């Protein structure tokens, strides 16, 4: 029977990701395989410049401009690029529209595919096993967990982004927002409403 003694050398110390990435990064830098300034630029871009405000601007534009909305639903990649959002993990976009009686929701069951240029990097829950396993088989229970209760007669469409298409939900514009500006509308649009795990609420 093993002794419980904290002074001994552990048999298999758990590997520490902070140490491992430091080792990997410094080795690749020493070998000239990566550039230190590029690393800083990558972090700044995805931490500070790209995020769900981009997607919210697309949604607000579609709500106020019927021609833009038509272009967005016909060729999402080009319409989103009109507003300046394109690139890695958004090369080929599809926008799916919520309507009265129809709700769309996006998942990647195999990994964590997500439209970076419009939504930024995905939240932890989107990448984790509970959401990825259940979104396709029991979307209503998933929506319940997000506080979204749909009437029984609302049709649900789940989009599994297993290929290179990246999906963005165009949520329904809430009632009572007729007089609002495009910027005011964009401010109401949440990340979750563009994944399909939320609805846009009028303030």
């Amino acid at each position, binding site marked *: 029977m093993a002794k419980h003694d904290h002074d001994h050398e552990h048999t298999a110390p758990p590997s520490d*990701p902070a140490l491992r990435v430091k080792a990997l990064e410094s080795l690749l830098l020493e*070998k000239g395989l990566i550039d230190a300034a590029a690393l800083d630029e990558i972090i700044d871009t995805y931490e500070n410049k790209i995020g769900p405000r981009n997607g919210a601007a697309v949604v607000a534009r579609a709500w106020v401009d019927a021609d833009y909305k038509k272009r967005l639903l016909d060729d999402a990649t080009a319409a989103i690029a009109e507003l300046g959002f394109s690139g890695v993990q958004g090369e080929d976009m599809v926008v799916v529209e919520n309507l009265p009686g129809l709700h769309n929701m996006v998942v990647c069951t195999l990994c964590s595919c997500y439209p970076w240029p419009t939504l930024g990097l995905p*939240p932890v*829950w989107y990448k984790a096993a*509970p959401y990825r396993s259940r979104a396709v088989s029991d979307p209503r229970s*998933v929506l319940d*967990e997000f506080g979204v209760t749909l009437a029984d007669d609302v049709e649900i469409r789940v989009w599994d982004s297993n290929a290179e298409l990246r999906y963005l939900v165009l949520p329904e514009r809430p009632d009572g927002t007729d007089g609002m500006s495009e910027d005011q509308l964009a401010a109401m649009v949440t990340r979750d409403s563009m994944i399909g795990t939320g609805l846009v609420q009028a303030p």
Partner: protein
Amino acid sequence: MNGVHDLGGMHGMGPINPEENEPVFHDEWERRVFAVTIATFGGGNYNVDQFRHGIERMGAANYLSTSYYEHWLHMVETLMIENGSISRDELSAKQAQLAQEAA
């Protein structure tokens, strides 16, 4: 390959637990993993399908018990060893050196 990453319809994974006002990164090491991954991918060291396969080849329990950026770290280590950019021994020696410096 058939692996635990193929999660659609699997039972027993528990509640989703979304985090309120979640930050883009939770820790400095996640920033570094993200940047090293994009830098090596952008430098043409592997394609997106090799990237995904590199993660799928983790063992089932290892995959499920580690976080997203640990999957990426495992993948970059694996692919950069396999394409000959670094060796297993070099990486392990660097880890030992850094652990000693930190001690």
